[in-house]
């Protein structure tokens, strides 16, 4: 009853002019950035951050979450219509979405994507509302070892998921954790890696790491690729959305249910962003779907599964952020930064104070309204939104760089912050060229202070006995899960190697033998 009451209050806040305007603006920005290859929802959230500096907390978070949620949807427009995926998460939509469009049903394909985004978004938002209070109660009982284990789990899953090489992913993570140690240590007041520079005494703000690596680094990287689109927007394409019938929807009910649950659950796992959920949902459909053999030829299930998965992951990601204060992705890290800039620490305490509870439920309510709003906008304004693709890439990149620079400067009116983002931009470019994944480094820089604080507190409380992480129930479970997450890519690699090394079966060998 309490939850519904607060949700109702949140809904009434959303429909105040200020919150509604930022919600609509956020949805539009999210759609525009997700349509453009090379921008993406994380950059959209990063670019919007400076505008929240002078806003109250409620509209600030609504703006960023609206960009986040609509950023998982609009990329389907260009993937289905022009075979241009706005983000990697839209790649699975190329197989069935574009194929359906090629068969003369682009409007139907867009309709399936809309229904999928709506279902996934509303389902995961409802799960988030239901889980928020119980999760926050569990989080209240967290001690330092549990916090450390939770962060450790997040970092290991990011490493296991990202990158062309596990070694590079670990290096990236350690560099991020090291960046987080720069500055004056909070317990002893010791100067660490400051090199007598006053700029470094306060540490490296992780928002600057984010803006540099995701914003500038991406632009430099795209400059080196010649800023070309992988596809061509055609003017003769019919840009319209046709809804599937109730009967058609009933036929794919299992796909809708499977992908909604999977997307939400995977969203809770740190590091498993919209891209992972989109691919995994498609993969599960390919293994267990009723028409799995026909997948890839333009089936609705092939559009619905990845789209449901990616949109459902958003609310999933918000759960650890709001209840534990642990961001699991780049976008939620920026949202955490917005919270902190307003002097609010997300975590279980948000759910104990009635004032902050109202803010949290307004944010939760904004996800429901945002999901519905983005679908309405997608239905009516799709023609306008896909026109963003016609903006020349050279012009767009220049504007994005200026946004990053001014955004960094606006934080503290400091040119040194701008130097920091440029340095991290160059580092981001170098990482990309050397095939070091960026996300472990960024999450390392974000979660590093939390990991160090909980580690130090544990060591002080338990007299330097590190086995406590494995002995306590919750932390022990999380540590074992972390080791499993780390072991999974290794096991996968060695099994694959053994499979390749195994000589072909005699019958198969005889069949391929030309003699």
């Amino acid at each position, binding site marked *: 009853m309490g939850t519904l009451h607060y949700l109702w209050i949140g809904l009434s806040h959303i429909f105040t002019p200020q919150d509604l305007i930022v919600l609509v603006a956020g949805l539009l920005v999210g759609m525009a950035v997700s349509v453009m290859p090379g921008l993406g929802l994380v950059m959209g959230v990063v670019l919007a951050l400076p505008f929240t500096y*002078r806003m109250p907390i409620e509209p600030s978070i609504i703006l960023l979450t609206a960009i986040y949620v609509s950023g998982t949807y609009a990329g389907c427009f260009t993937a289905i219509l022009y075979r241009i995926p706005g983000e990697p998460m839209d790649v699975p939509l190329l197989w069935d979405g574009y194929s359906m469009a090629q068969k003369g049903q682009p409007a139907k394909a867009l309709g399936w994507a809309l229904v999928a985004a709506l279902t996934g978004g509303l389902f995961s938002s409802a799960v988030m509302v239901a889980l928020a209070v119980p999760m926050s109660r569990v989080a209240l009982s967290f001690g330092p070892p549990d916090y450390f284990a939770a962060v450790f789990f997040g970092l290991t899953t990011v490493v296991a998921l990202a990158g062309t090489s596990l070694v590079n992913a670990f290096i990236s993570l350690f560099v991020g954790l090291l960046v987080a*140690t720069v500055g004056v240590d909070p317990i*002893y007041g010791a*100067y660490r890696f400051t090199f007598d520079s006053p700029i470094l005494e306060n540490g490296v703000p992780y928002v600057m790491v984010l803006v540099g690596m995701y914003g500038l680094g991406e632009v430099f*990287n795209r400059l080196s690729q010649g800023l070309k689109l992988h596809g061509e927007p055609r003017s003769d394409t019919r840009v319209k959305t046709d809804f599937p019938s109730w009967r058609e929807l009933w036929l794919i009910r299992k796909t809708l249910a499977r992908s909604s649950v999977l997307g939400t659950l995977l969203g809770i796992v740190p590091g498993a962003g919209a891209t992972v959920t989109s691919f995994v949902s498609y*993969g599960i459909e390919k293994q267990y779907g009723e028409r799995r053999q026909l997948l890839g030829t333009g089936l609705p299930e092939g559009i619905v599964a990845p789209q449901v998965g990616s949109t459902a992951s958003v609310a999933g990601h918000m759960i650890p952020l709001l209840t534990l204060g642990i961001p699991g992705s780049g976008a939620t890290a920026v949202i955490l930064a917005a919270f902190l800039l307003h002097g609010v620490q997300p975590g279980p305490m948000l759910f104990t104070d009635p004032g902050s509870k109202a803010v949290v439920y307004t944010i939760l309510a904004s996800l429901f309204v945002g999901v519905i709003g983005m679908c309405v906008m997608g239905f009516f304004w799709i023609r306008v939104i896909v026109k963003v693709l016609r903006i020349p890439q050279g012009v767009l990149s220049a504007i994005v760089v200026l946004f990053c620079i*001014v955004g960094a400067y606006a934080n503290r*009116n400091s040119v040194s912050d701008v130097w920091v983002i440029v340095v991290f931009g160059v580092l981001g470019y170098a990482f990309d*060229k050397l095939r070091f994944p960026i996300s472990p480094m960024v999450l390392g820089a974000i979660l590093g202070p939390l990991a160090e604080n909980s580690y130090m507190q544990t060591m002080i409380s338990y007299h330097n006995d590190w086995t406590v992480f494995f002995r306590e129930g919750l932390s022990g479970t999380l540590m074992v899960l972390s080791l499993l997450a780390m072991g999974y890519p290794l096991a996968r690699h060695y099994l694959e*190697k053994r499979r390749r090394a195994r000589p072909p079966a005699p019958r198969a060998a005889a069949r391929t033998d030309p003699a």
Partner: protein
Amino acid sequence: MPVLLKLRRIAPYAIILALSGYLYDLALHFDYQKVPGRIGPDAWPRIILVLLMAICAYQVLRLALQRKTGEVEGVLQSLEEEAAPSLVHPETEHPWLAWAGIALTFGYLLAFERVGFFSASFVYLFLLMLVGGYRRVLTALGIALAASLAFMFVFMKIVYVSLPLGRGPFLDVSIGVMKVLGIH
């Protein structure tokens, strides 16, 4: 594998290894009041640096000995590569364009406070568009002008950020622009 190629592959890891060693040495000499029986502020950075050095040393040795063990891939990467290799690894690379963009950005930052936000951004945007392959010079000039004005208006008038105005004649230009935009 040719020696040069091998060295090129080893170099990033060797550099990180050397830097980590240097930082580890710095961490050993952090200045703080030691408390008996308690770990100090150097403990956490040292743990990270030891792990970083160990993994870099492993990679250097692996590449130097040319063990054909292959790389252990992250789960997402293999999914993306299986799905659309051309999207993960684009065919054409023009690193000089990126370095030109980086050089321009460094130049912009050096000029930022002296030349002022408006004038510096105008030139920077125009040149960056050219580096980005946009060849309509007059349109690029127009966009650079409009974007510089728009940024100045939004950030100075709406978000209340005091952007640098520059010195000497550039200060006069910035003040003139502010008057036109109604920024006081």
